[in-house]
């Protein structure tokens, strides 16, 4: 019973953390958000490609596995983003400069985070996967929907968490959104 209770508490804490994070990002409180990441953060967005079907794998789930479509950080392809603390700092910093012309006026966003699943807990490290939809309305342009999955490594930080690694898997066939350079 108490193990079960602990799991419910953990799930609750993680979900609350994600909701808080999403609220900060939608409210454009990127500086506060930036305090939620570790200095060693790895922030990666694999690219997604269309692969040939491998005949030898027919009949197996692996034949059409999503892993096969991704160019990730640890292989020799070309991920869309491979960032660390410095990159995220530049993105956050730019948001509050009067001369960041391309973001003026800034886009309006709304994130919905769901399907939060704790994959493992080891001491103070959580591996969590979650899905998101992000509505993005850009003045002078159009409205867009982003959809994706985040695979996180979170570290316990007092009664909250810090993001130590995030892999963002975007659901696109053709990239027809204005930028994949947002904070997902």
């Amino acid at each position, binding site marked *: 019973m108490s193990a079960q209770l602990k799991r419910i508490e953990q799930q609750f804490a993680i979900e609350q953390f994600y909701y808080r994070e999403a609220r900060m990002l939608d409210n454009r409180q990127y500086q506060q958000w930036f305090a939620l990441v570790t200095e060693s953060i790895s922030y990666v967005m694999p690219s997604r*490609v269309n*692969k040939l079907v491998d005949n030898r794998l027919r009949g197996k789930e692996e034949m059409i596995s999503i892993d096969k479509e991704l*160019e990730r950080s640890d292989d020799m*392809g070309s991920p869309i983003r491979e960032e660390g603390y410095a990159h995220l700092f*530049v993105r956050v910093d730019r948001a509050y*400069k009067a001369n960041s*012309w391309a973001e003026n006026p800034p886009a309006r966003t709304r994130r919905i985070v769901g399907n939060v699943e704790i994959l493992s807990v080891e001491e103070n490290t959580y591996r969590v996967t979650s899905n998101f939809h992000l509505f993005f309305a850009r003045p002078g342009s159009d409205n867009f929907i982003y959809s994706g999955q985040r695979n996180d490594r979170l570290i316990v930080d007092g009664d909250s968490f810090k993001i130590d690694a995030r892999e963002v898997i975007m659901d696109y066939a053709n990239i027809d959104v204005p930028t994949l*350079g947002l904070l997902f």
Partner: protein
Amino acid sequence: MIKISDLVSDDAAYISRRAWSDPAVYQLEKHGVFGKAWLFLGHETQIKHPGDFVQAYMCETPIILARGEDNKIYANINSCSHRGLPVCRADHGNTKRFVCPYHNWSYKVDGSLVAIPQEKMVSQKPDKNTLGLKPVPRVESWQGMIFGSFDESIEPLDSYLGDMRFYLDAFFDRFENGIEFAGAPHRWTINANWKLPMENQLGDVNHGPFLHSAVIPAEANQEIFDVGLSAVPHPGHGATFRLMPEGTPNENMAWGMEGMGAILGGSEVKEYLFEIQAKAKERVGDIRARMKGLTYGVYPNLSFLWSNTSFKVSHPRGPGKVEYWSWSAIPADAPDSVKKILRTNYSSFFGPGGILEQEDSEAWMQQFIGSNIDFADDKPYYYGLGMGDEKPHPELPGMVSSTANEYYARAFFKRWREALESVSDQDANRIALAEVR
């Protein structure tokens, strides 16, 4: 009815809004520009082995670029001879056959038709020799860069590139074993006209201190102001770079050092880049060893961002849409650990998630909006900045001037206007017909 001569003034100091937005102009571009130019298809390192293939585009026409069983390079239009479906759906890979999904006609990677499954059920046997994929009539490569042309009588690629090779070699020849493209291209659509991304890379470094002022440090812009040059070796091509003074320390001169990968990447990557720079003088000569490249453009729609080492192609999808492709280029013989760091010199700032690219693409989209408005055709865009400042240079081919001179764009648009004027009446009739349909 638009007259082509109204699109670009004789001195190219004025460019009409319609040059960017008119559907009839776009149809003329297909024939006059894309039908008669060398178009970039891919890099030889992407198709090293027999059976390797990648997808490409020539304007809106899908192409399969492949290495055949005979080890030769083939480029064919990706459309089945039976009902026209694309026979290749993967971005890249290695295969013996492309099997069309609809009725399973199958083709070798060189485009020849090898099987019609329905054949045994009919008495008249189709002549498979005449039913292969349509080949691109001309395919040539230079420094591993493969180009195709729909124009059978186009000049050889070497002379088409002309003195642009001097500037491209300043990069390519630094590497003993050449460069390679990392992974599949990033491809994304932007609601802009294809020419603006191209113009941007041909020579428009002068938007850097303004559009990108929140990201690019002032010292970097000062350096461009002090030692930046814009060279036009031939109208339609262009190269911008900084010509660093002799004695500039490696930290500030070596290729790759100014990228985020190198800045954050530790000593291994630095040592590697210094090693390349140490050999540069011997490999490319003194003046080119001191070149620190910015942006390059090759007519009509290939560009190379030397500072962040990315090749890009601006594929039109109508007057108001481009499918932009970009690749990270890395030295072929660098250790994997170094390659992984160097590829982030590109992705940190460019590509669909790049912080600078997102500013550029926003500007490009907004430019299309301005180009597609009414009641302003008597207000063409001003392209006259620096008119006449371009001069021959004692050591560099072409016309050379400061990066604020918009000569690169005037030269491009003069060539573009001639290309549109060259569209034959026969082609023009076809275009009119297509519009009626």
